[in-house]
Structures are given as C-alpha cells and as structure tokens.
C-alpha cells in the first residue's frame, strides 16, 4: 500500500481542522496534511448560512460560509496540503493514518502527531420514542438545513419541530422565510437547549410558539406525515393525559442535539468522557495517547465557532511543539492535576492541568446541567476556594468558563485536586 509521511495529520477540514493546521504551520511545522471526507473544506459552516459567526475573532458578524472562507484563505496562504473526498478509516497507536479516496484508493500516512477534528453529528431518532408508522416527512433538522440551504429544496410546507436545539430554532426561521408555516416547537425539557439569541430572533420575531415540557405522542399519516399530536409531560417526562394538542402538518423536524463523532478515536484507544462523548484531554488538548490531540466539536459540542478556532489554534501549537521537541514534551509528568466538575458543573475541558507546563492563564470551559439563577461559579484548589464569581443566569445551552492562573496554581502547596462547582447565593 502507498505510504506517505507527514509531521502532522489533521482529521477533518471544518473550522477546527483549519485553525489547527494554520496554527501548527505558524508554529514552525512545514509538513502538514488535512484530510476531509466532504467535497469542500469548511465543515458544518457550509450549511450554516445564517449570520452570527466570528464577532470575537474578526470583530464583524459573518455568516458560516464567510467565516469558513477566511480560514480557507489562510490555509491557502500558508500553502498547507489538503485532500478532499477523503475518508479517514483508522488511526493506529503508532500514528499510521489509514484513509481512502477515489484517486488513491486505500492509503496510509505515517504521522508524528495527529489532530482529531471530526466535529459532531446529530443525535438519532431515538428521541422519537413512539410506536407506529414512520411516514415520509420526518427529517433531522440538520438534514433539512442541508436540503434547503445547499440543494435549494424545501422538505415541506407545514412544519412541527421537536426539540429546541439551535439547528431546530434556526430551521424554524429559515423555513418560515421560505414560505412554510412553522406551527410549534415542542421541547421535552423545561428549558431550551438552544441559545437565547436564537429563541429571540428565530421564534419570537415570527410569533412561533415554544412549548417547554412537551413531546410528540402521535403521528398521523401512513405514506406522508399528516398531523402531529403533542402533549405536556410531567417531571418524569411522561405525557400527561388530557393535555394533547393536535396540529395538521406535512413535516416533522427533529432537533435533539449533537454528539461528537468519535468512532475513530475510540478504536484508537483514546479515553472518552461519558459526559461529553469526547476525548479526555490535558491542558495541551492532548489525549491519553501521546501525540494525539483533539479540538472543536469532536472534543465537546461548542455553540461559538470563535471558541472552536481558539481551541484548535492551541491544539495546533501544542502539536507543533510535540513534533519539534519530541519526547521532551512533558506529557508524562506526574504533576497533571485533575479537575473535577461537581454540583451542577457537568464536565470540564481540559480534564487535567499541569502548573509547570501551562501558560500564564488557562481558560477552563464547562457546561452546567440545569438552569441556575443568581448562583456562583466556584473553583477550589484542594479545599480552598479561590474563585467565587456571581452569574445572573446559567443554562445548559451556553458554555461557561473560568480562568486559572499559573502563579496561583504553582504557589499552592501540595495541590492534588482542582474542583469546579456551582454554589447557591
């Protein structure tokens, strides 16, 4: 089999892969290859034609394709090699990447470092927990987004949406603008999984009702969806009899969240977080396998692409340092301090931090498991509270952060444990 050699191989050419590649190059590594299974670079941004990207990176508000375009330009400027229509099948622990495309067939690349940037996929229809027929007219929100925005095809005229994830909210507006009637968005949980700004500008702007604590209990139609019945649910998420409401419609969109795409990482033996379904990483964004890094939605689902680019930039830099310094990379140091998320904080990225190796400041990102009002984000070094920051509102749909300082961590005697938690007023 044809075997090529590169210093860094990047799996995925979305915003994470692009930013990682550019950063690795600017940090002194010449030999970089990006592998993308789609026919173009840019990842999910190609179908996100709405605006709201890049305000923090570029100080202007761009659409998804424009934001991707900026990074694709940088990739071209840096003359970084990439292959499209190329699917990575496997990565071995000695960093042989096996990939496939039409021209080369199956081929192998020996890499010194690998950056995982495969993004995420939509949660499956498991969400639709009802017996009976599955008529035509049921789509995942992301599939509908691709059809409308990239193929110019409208999946239906009268729509009900189950799940209030961002893609569902954005598609509620998109289909309304294209002349469809979106009758209702039903959300199983008592709060929306989407961003507040999307509820304002995608639902409120158009008078589309959002029914929290509701689910779909019945679908009419054999060949094609003809109607949907939703009902309110109790605390145990069971439908409450007598609360049923019927809507005639020809389309049901399911927007039930995203999940990192980690089949390749798992078979490589990368340790996974059961909470995020993404790899566990240290503050260099390195997994338990030396020289294998992860960033973007494959690591944890992001709502803000600016953070993806920032995180990916760091992964690219650390991968470049690993390639240049080889074994001197102190990833095997004993001083990796675990970060524990409890009491409302669900997980943290990174999972460990090394005070000797870290930069002056390090941003730790996490999500909460419920809606919290007027609570505090607290950080403890062993038993001592060092951060206690008031937050008016926190919700699972929005990522939170705390900043750890090297000075403080390095000066703390016998530091063995960092804890992030939510505390009541």
């Amino acid at each position: 089999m044809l075997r090529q050699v590169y210093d860094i191989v990047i799996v995925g050419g979305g915003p994470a892969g692009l930013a990682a590649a550019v950063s690795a190059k600017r940090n002194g590594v010449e030999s970089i290859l990006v592998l993308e299974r789609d026919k173009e670079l840019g990842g999910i941004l190609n179908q996100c034609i709405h605006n709201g990207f890049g305000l923090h990176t570029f100080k202007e508000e761009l659409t998804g394709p424009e934001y991707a375009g900026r990074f694709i330009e940088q990739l071209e400027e840096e003359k970084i090699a990439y292959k499209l229509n190329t699917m990575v099948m496997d990565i071995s622990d000695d960093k042989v990447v096996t990939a496939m495309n039409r021209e080369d067939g199956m081929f192998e690349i020996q890499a010194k470092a690998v950056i995982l940037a495969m993004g995420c996929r939509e949660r499956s229809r498991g969400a639709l927990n009802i017996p009976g027929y599955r008529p035509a007219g049921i789509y995942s929100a992301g599939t509908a987004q691709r059809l409308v925005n990239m193929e110019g095809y409208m999946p239906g005229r009268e729509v009900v949406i189950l799940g209030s994830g961002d893609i569902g909210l954005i598609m509620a507006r998109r289909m309304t603008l294209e002349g469809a009637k979106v009758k209702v968005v039903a959300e199983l949980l008592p709060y929306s999984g989407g961003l507040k700004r999307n509820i304002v500008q995608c639902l409120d702007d158009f008078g589309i009702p959002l029914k929290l604590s509701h689910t779909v209990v019945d679908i009419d139609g054999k060949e094609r969806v003809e109607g949907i019945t939703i009902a309110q649910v109790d605390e145990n998420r069971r439908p409450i009899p007598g609360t049923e409401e019927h809507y005639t419609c020809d389309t049901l969109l399911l927007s039930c969240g995203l999940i990192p795409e980690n089949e390749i990482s798992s078979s490589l033996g990368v340790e996974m977080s059961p909470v995020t379904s993404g790899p566990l990483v240290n503050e260099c964004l390195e997994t338990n396998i030396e020289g294998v890094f992860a960033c973007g939605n494959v690591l944890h689902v992001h709502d803000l692409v600016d953070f993806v680019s920032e995180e990916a930039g760091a992964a690219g830099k650390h991968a470049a340092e690993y390639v240049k310094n080889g074994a001197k990379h102190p990833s095997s140091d004993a001083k990796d301090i675990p970060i524990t998320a409890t009491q409302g904080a669900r997980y943290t990225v990174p999972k460990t931090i090394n005070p000797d190796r870290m930069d002056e400041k390090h941003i730790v990102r996490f999500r909460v498991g419920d809606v919290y009002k007027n609570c505090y984000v607290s950080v403890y070094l062993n038993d001592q509270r060092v951060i206690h920051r008031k937050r008016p509102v926190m919700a699972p749909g929005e990522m939170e952060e705390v900043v750890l300082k090297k000075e403080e961590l390095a000066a703390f005697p016998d530091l063995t444990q960092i804890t992030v938690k939510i505390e009541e007023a």
Partner: protein
Amino acid sequence: METRELICIGCPMGCPLKVEINNGEVSSVTGNTCKRGDDYARKEVTNPTRIVTSSVIVEGGSLAAVSVKTKQDIPKGKIFDIMKALKGVKVQAPVHIGDVIVSNVADTGVDIIATKNVL
C-alpha cells in the same frame, strides 16, 4: 420611566440587557459585554433591524445554491419583502464572496451579496 429587558442578538453570548427609557429616549443600557450590545439595545427599542440570510439558485457551478445576505441590517418589517424579491433569482457561476446579487433589494437601499464562493 420605562425599563425593557432584551437579549442581545449580536453574537451567541446572548447578553441579557436592561434598557431604561425616559420620555421615549434611551437613558441607559446595562448588561452588555461589548459596544455592540449598547447599539443593539438602542436600535431594538426604536427601530429594530435584522440581517437577512438566504440562498439563491446558481447555474453552471459546483453547487446548486449560493448563500447570500443583506450587506447591512434592514428594518425588521422588511424581512418578507426581501424574501419575496429573492424568489426565483438565479445567478451564473462563478460567484465570489461579496459579489452583489441584487442591488437595492426591495427598495431598502441595501444590496444582497454572496457569502460563499461557487466556482
């Protein structure tokens, strides 16, 4: 004095804003993280505007459709007029980011521009 609570739609941070209005004039905006939030709040209570994004058919290119947007924000009440004006618009490839697709769309004085390269 009247207060209104808004969510800034400037970016996905979605800052909660409080606007104080005195005799029809905005006297203070709080809760914003950056200057845009202030601008947004002032506009939203007087003349709300939005950026409209959509896609139009492209012929002879590598993709079937090209994404587009209004170059500046337009009055909220004009959204559907703009969508109507975009119905049936077809362009020929190649199209580049920033190319004007429809000028002065629906008499708003704002152009529709491409947001993607389709070659």
